């Protein structure tokens, strides 16, 4: 196993070429981190987060998940969130432990402008995470985002969001994103004896992962809606790992990438 890891690290070093290694952001749970290259969410890359069904339009669970995932990053620098519809609500993010004083919101007029602002923000010193709500990222735009990420080691989060009532957009053929997550809300479980809702849970599927493996899990926001939320090292807690059925498609995806 250790030989295997050593080879994998060697390949990763070869692949990265001259680009600076920006490190990884571990989730704090082995069953997740082992699937990801380097043992955590790769920084200095961009990640794709999609919702399904209603969430493809409203994009509430993907936004919440992205904010939770990037929460440790927000402590290192500013976070820029590029929107098309300004319905993101900072008190909600604050409840999930995302520092609202670090959040800069930008409302762009169209897709191209959203991507342009994202690129601009990613190359800026002092900005650690950039979120963008776009309908689709084609191959060229994805490459440009990747180059912008590599310039300063900024991490991008592309939240795929369809305009309300819009037709289903044709899926881009390939993507340069480091990872692709499909996020659905999952029923919460309050602790026994409590009534009402429990901590927010998400059904998260890692659909694509460069240099890693795919998987599916149910994750829970740790310490959500409390003043301690900001102090937790790993904002997402594993509740259950779901079936490991994605091994075969993952290999074919890697073959495609290669």
């Amino acid at each position, binding site marked *: 196993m250790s030989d295997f890891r050593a080879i994998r690290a060697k390949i990763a070093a070869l692949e990265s070429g001259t680009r600076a290694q920006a490190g990884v952001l571990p989730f704090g749970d082995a069953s997740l981190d082992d699937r990801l290259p380097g043992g955590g969410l790769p920084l200095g890359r961009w990640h794709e987060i999609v919702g399904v069904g209603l969430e493809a339009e409203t994009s509430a669970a993907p936004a919440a998940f992205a904010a939770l995932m990037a929460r440790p990053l927000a402590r290192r620098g500013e976070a820029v969130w590029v929107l098309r519809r300004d319905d993101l609500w900072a008190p909600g993010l604050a409840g999930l432990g995302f520092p609202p004083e670090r959040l800069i919101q930008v409302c762009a007029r169209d897709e191209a402008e959203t991507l342009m602002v994202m690129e601009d923000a990613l190359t800026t*010193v002092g900005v650690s995470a950039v979120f963008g709500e776009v309908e689709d990222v084609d191959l060229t735009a994805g490459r440009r985002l990747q180059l912008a990420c590599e310039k300063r080691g900024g991490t991008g989060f592309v939240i795929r969001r369809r305009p309300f009532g819009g037709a289903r957009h044709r899926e881009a053929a390939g993507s340069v994103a480091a990872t692709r997550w499909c996020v659905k809300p999952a029923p919460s479980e309050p602790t026994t004896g409590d009534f009402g809702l429990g901590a927010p849970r998400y059904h998260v599927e890692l659909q694509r992962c460069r240099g890693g493996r795919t998987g599916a899990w149910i994750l829970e926001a740790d310490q959500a809606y409390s*003043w301690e939320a900001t102090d937790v090292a790993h904002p997402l807690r594993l509740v259950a790992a779901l079936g490991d059925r994605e091994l075969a498609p993952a290999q074919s995806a890697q073959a495609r990438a290669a």
Partner: protein
Amino acid sequence: MRRLAAVNRAAAKLGLYAGQKATDATALVPGLATEEADPQADAEALIALIDWCVRFSPAVAADAPGGLFLDITGVAHLWGDEAGMMADFRERLLTSGLPFRMSIADTPGAAWALAHFGLDQAIAPPGEQAELLKALPPEALRLPPEAAAQIGRLGLRRLEQIIALPRAPLARRFGAATLERLDQALGRSAEALRFRRPPTPWLARLALVEPISTPEDMARVTQDVTAKLCARLEAGSHGARRFEIAFHRVDGKALPLTLGLSLAGRDARRIARLFQPKLETVDPGFGIECVTLAAYDVEATSGRQGRIDADLAVTIEDGLAPLIDRLVNRLGPERVWRDAAVESHVPELSVGRAPVLGGAPSEAMPWDREVPRPVRLFRRPEPIEDVTALLPDDPPLQFRWRGRLHRVRRAEGPERVGEEWWKRGIDEISVAHVRDYYRVEDAEGSRFWLFRAGLYGGSDVPPKWWMHGLFG
């Protein structure tokens, strides 16, 4: 009654004067051509003229209805001397076709007197305006009408007679205003002019030998004029937050472009680059012959410190401020913001927009993180239908939103939010504005923030249900 508001030179020769009854005037001069007075348009034209005059000096004050003061302290040398400047000014005014008179003197009062009653284009040598003023009538002092009438009654026809009078009786007889005007004209007391734009010492001007019109030339000129001003700012350890560049066209129009910075800056290349996308909006017409750049909100900024390690010492000035400036100037200031807490219990009012940088620190209480709030909040709550609830105060069991039926699995609430009744009239307050919020989760796990507006049984209108946000 209709009166003449103004007369031109030819009409004045015929004995007509401003304030004359229109009927008298037409009786005196049959076939008199008149035009309706439009004070609004006159004032606008004066403003336009003042804006044009900025190419000569940044300090221009209006002297309504038909005059203006130009403070040429320290600028005349750009034309060689005062006479040269006046000649250039005169030539350019002549092309506009406006009738005018002008003069240069030490004080605004003396200049006004000479321009209105003295020789046209008189230049009073420094400290010698009293000599030139002596021969002028007392009206040249810009006096209140009563004082002017009183002076006329007493037979004082020339200013030298007034200057010769002892000061105390002069003030007693004609009022303190007369004495003050006299002092102002003679330079014994200072007069504050209300300049159209606040005078800024931070002004750079670039006169071009040949008028330019191509975009490349305009970009280069912008860079040059910015570099010129920024070098001065740098030398004085200053930075500015607002810049205004004006392109003066050959036909006398000045086209301004403004630029705001989130933090005071003086990086010439950065500022020029921020102007770049806006240059397209400037129509150069037949060419631009002069460019001015003014800096406002100038404040002292510390000098640039060389960094040892680029990664360790990241300053806002290096990274964030240029980004925010680029975004604000490209998208508009209302499209870039930080959400800031506002003290209100009404959800949509509890968030305000603050500027990203340089805003005053908010004194409002931060949001309570222990009450769950949605990640997405709809600007307008969306109606939900087919709501069934067991009891009036119970959360709904199911509801239909956007054509889909949701069965509620878990629910929390109600959280009652009243309206801000103290901000409304007493007759507008109603229980229909009371909202009961519920946080519900449907069978698939989607979490919603719903509210019921109004109470059951209270009024005739049944309460309505709304979707206000999504937790995700």
